[in-house]
């Protein structure tokens, strides 16, 4: 029996084989799928911002930031028997939802999120096999761990399989 596991915003979950993962309505946020095809373990993270704030005195949620969510996913997957060298990534999201004229910096967070995700994955030497990022529309992401397939659904741009 496969079951659907939902990932909220600033959230991350790792599951084994039969299950599939879903995260809804990625705007400028980025969804990161990681999987190991040998052990059939896969994870999905939904980050909101690029970097963990160094100066923060508060207890921050590590899964909210690209550069702390990915390490946390890798650690947990290793604990579940994955090998870091086998991990592969697929990513989606990082859109610019609104174009405010006269304010070119507004909404660039999506692009910065994508850059931070790629940089962090590069540091772990995890290859990105597919990406559906940028542009100006929201995406719902399904990740089928058994096959490593990422399906991206949007309101006005149909369904794409990666």
């Amino acid at each position, binding site marked *: 029996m496969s079951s659907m596991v939902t990932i909220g915003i600033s959230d991350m979950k790792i599951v084994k084989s039969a299950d599939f993962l879903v995260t809804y309505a990625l705007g400028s*946020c980025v969804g990161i799928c990681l999987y190991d095809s040998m052990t059939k373990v896969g994870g999905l993270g939904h980050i909101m911002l690029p970097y963990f704030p160094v100066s923060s005195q508060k207890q921050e949620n590590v899964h*909210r930031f690209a550069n702390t969510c990915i390490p946390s996913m890798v650690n947990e997957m290793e604990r579940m028997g994955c090998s870091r060298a086998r991990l592969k990534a697929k990513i989606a999201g990082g859109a610019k*939802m*609104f174009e405010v004229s*006269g304010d070119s910096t507004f909404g660039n967070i999506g692009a910065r999120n994508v850059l931070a995700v790629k940089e962090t994955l590069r540091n772990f030497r995890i290859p990105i096999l597919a990406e559906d990022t940028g542009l100006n529309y929201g995406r719902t992401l399904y990740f089928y761990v058994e096959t490593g397939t990422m399906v991206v659904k949007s309101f006005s741009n149909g369904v794409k399989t990666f």
Partner: protein
Amino acid sequence: MLNLDQLNEIHIDVLREIGNIGAGNAATSLSQMLDTTVDMAVPTVRILDINDAATALGGPENAVVGILVKLYGDIEGIMMFIIEQDFVKTALQVLLGEDMVQCEKLSEIELSAISEIGNIMISAYINSIGTLSQLNIKTSVPAVSVDMVGAILSVPAIEMSSVSERIIFIEDDFLSRKNQISANMLLVPSMDSLSKLMLQLGIDL
């Protein structure tokens, strides 16, 4: 600086009243534009994380039209007008005489008309708050997006959430009995601006 956890009942009441005055003016404009009676519910002030906010507006994948205006000057923040597809259809029928509107592919002129409705309502809302508080609030040109409400709501959440995972929404619902319309106005001020607005209205923090 004001912290969301420090807001008490009096603060919430003031915010609700701000929402009431702003939305009252906006509802009048809407009623004139659409030539129909427009009712509004009592505004709600919510301090939410964005997962809950999307759930409150029909679930993250509910497709809506969002009109966004940036606030600057004395108050910094984001104002958003979120309208359901039924509302879009009603409005375009009244304004452009169109019967077969497809929200998946709105034309340039349809988007422009919708964006102007949002702009007029947001301006009416902001002007009344500006007058009340004697603050000079400026607005950007409106930006419009037709998409899943979760993706649209993530924008104010991200832009305004540098200090907290949660954001404060002042939410107003508009309804019409004659036509099927349902819309929400969201005011998402920065925490600095929220303090300024409170002080200006004579509320101690």
